[in-house]
């Protein structure tokens, strides 16, 4: 081909396409996954369809958490704050001002990102790290929960119910209960979130962020604008988590302080990522699928337990026990999570 090359390439080399860059490979995998997922609600029975939507909500939360805590290394124990802000902002705009949930979602993202930047700024300004940072994020989420619970503006502990409309409308994100449209909307949102997380990881900002995570002092001494990139990461993470909150409210038609800001929500954002692999692109996806299916399996198990587990009938808590055990086992045995461990094997 080119006559300038000294060692002329062999024919096969010349024909072979250049290897895909990692982000393009990941985008391709994502596209295939989304295409495979699109017909799912038409095939699955209705009950499984609901599980699929829940998995996508877990996925959104997990992707959001992973950007801040996995890529950015800032372990957040308060992502319920952003989930709740997304849920409440969109619910408030819809209920009080009849604004479309799509716009409410955008507003929620903006509010969550702004709050995250404020919290982040103070945390970084006062150099909170590790356990102290985790405790501070937790405290902020709990403060928001208490404020919402006691302010009449947000209907106190009652929360908001989404007003029902006649028929279905994509603009209002409201469809008949078993409609596959919910799944498609959630799939669109989750797919976009994963795409953004891939794009972010491989962008210039993403490279800065992972460098800062790995060695903040070294990155800073080489001139990386540490504070700006940390705040950017925190804002992006909060915005994606807020989308999960807004969609959650729209799907379950209801939100209250505990469902929006409770510490259980923060845990639900963390657990899938830990199981899948913190700081990997596919960890949140794999983790969300596992956790989502697992909660369904345990729910079925509790409704109709086999004979030897008869005493469990109607007892709540088994699902959480199972995923607590799963978390402990994964952390002990596969500290990098499922995807992280597999990737390490692959490379070797």
């Amino acid at each position: 081909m080119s006559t300038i090359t000294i060692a002329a390439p062999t024919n096969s080399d010349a024909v072979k396409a250049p290897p895909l860059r990692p982000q393009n490979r990941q985008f391709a995998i994502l596209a295939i996954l989304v295409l495979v997922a699109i017909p799912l609600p038409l095939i699955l029975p209705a009950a499984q369809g609901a599980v699929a939507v829940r998995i996508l909500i877990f996925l959104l939360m997990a992707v959001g958490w992973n950007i801040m805590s996995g890529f950015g290394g800032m372990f957040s124990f308060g992502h319920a704050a952003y989930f709740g802000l997304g849920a409440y902002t969109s619910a408030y705009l819809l209920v009080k001002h009849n604004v479309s949930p799509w716009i409410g979602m955008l507003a929620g993202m903006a509010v969550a990102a702004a709050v995250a930047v404020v919290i982040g700024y103070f945390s970084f300004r006062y150099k909170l790290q590790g356990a102290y940072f985790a405790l501070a994020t937790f405290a902020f989420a709990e403060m928001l929960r208490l404020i919402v619970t006691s302010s009449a503006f947000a209907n106190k502990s009652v929360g908001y119910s989404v007003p029902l409309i006649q028929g279905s409308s994509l603009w209002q994100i409201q469809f008949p209960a078993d409609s596959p449209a919910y799944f498609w909307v959630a799939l669109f949102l989750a797919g976009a979130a994963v795409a953004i997380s891939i794009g972010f990881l491989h962008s210039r900002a993403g490279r800065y962020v992972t460098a800062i995570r790995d060695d903040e002092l070294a990155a800073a001494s080489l001139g990386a604008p540490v504070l700006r990139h940390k705040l950017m990461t925190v804002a992006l993470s909060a915005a994606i988590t807020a989308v999960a909150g807004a969609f959650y409210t729209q799907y379950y038609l209801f939100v209250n302080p505990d469902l929006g800001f409770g510490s259980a929500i923060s845990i639900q954002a963390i657990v899938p990522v830990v199981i899948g692999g913190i700081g990997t692109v596919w960890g949140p996806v794999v983790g969300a699928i596992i956790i989502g299916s697992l909660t369904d399996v345990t729910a079925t198990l509790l409704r109709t337990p086999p004979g030897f587990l008869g005493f469990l009938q109607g007892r709540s808590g088994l699902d959480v026990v199972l995923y607590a055990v799963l978390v402990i086992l994964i952390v002990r045995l596969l500290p990098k999570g499922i995807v992280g461990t597999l990737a390490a094997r692959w490379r070797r």
Partner: protein
Amino acid sequence: MTELDTGAPVVPETAPPDRKAKVDQGFLRRAGIVAAILVVAVVVALLQSGSGLVVWQSVVTGILTGGLYGLIAMGLTLIFGVLDIVNFAHGAFLAVAMFLSFGMVQATGLHPYLTLVVAVPVLFLLGAAVHRGLLSGAGGRSLENQLLITLGLSLLLENGLQMFFGAEPKTITLPGDFQFSLLGAVVAGSRLYAFLGAVVLGGLLFWLLRRTRLGTAIRAVAANAPGAALVGINVRRMHTLTFAIGTACAGAAAVLAGPLVTVTPTLGDQFNITAFVVVVLGGMGNVAGALVGGLLIGLVEQLTTIYLGGQSSLLGVFVVFVLVLFLRPQGLFGRRA
């Protein structure tokens, strides 16, 4: 006053004398500021409620409840200071011990306080097992892993309790409980006992850390683990022992607090939050600081209730928490590392 200041086992004792004097001065100044803020808070509460009796009752309740918080936080602060583990399972350990106490009282009709004899050793063993099995070794070393393991453990214990005991609240009644009036404020005997228990346990822990060989070894490990290993201390055993002692404290706290609360599987969560605040306030690893921090948080909680009404008592606690985290992460009474 100096007794309090030397309560931190993480602080080496070889500070030169002039520096020590300076630190004491700073300590006195901070204590003065805290006291002044408290006085202002009480005066504002007086103006807000307009009734001296209400405020006096709040102060008394706050101090007594605060002793309880200090009691719960002591184990946590020990674990935090020596092992650097943020133990999210501390509240769940508390709940386990409370159900243990409840179960024994139900089954045998024992006096609730007698269940100490069982709850403390059982929790000690549980703590040792958890540390050996889950937290020590490679998988449990990094910060995130410790957070996640203790978080998972707390979910596991709480929901395990819920599966076997159900979620409906239970009460432990103290036979022969009484009430008396302290200058107009009503005080329950069980609350007073819990407070005294906290003081006694704090004293015991302080004595253990300061006056025994074991305590010296624990402090040595906290200050410099490789150095301690060089002089022949088994660091891993000390870590396990410390974790077990901290968990045993949760056991003792649970038995003393049992008659004061409604026992539910998740009650540990709330105490956990408060205990973390107390630990940060008092300084990591500072047992005496935990007791003082507990008293302060008890007061803050009661006064917030006067300001904002019943539901938001924790809000004041969190505000204090965030302020302390930002401004003095080494604790109100700790020294800068």
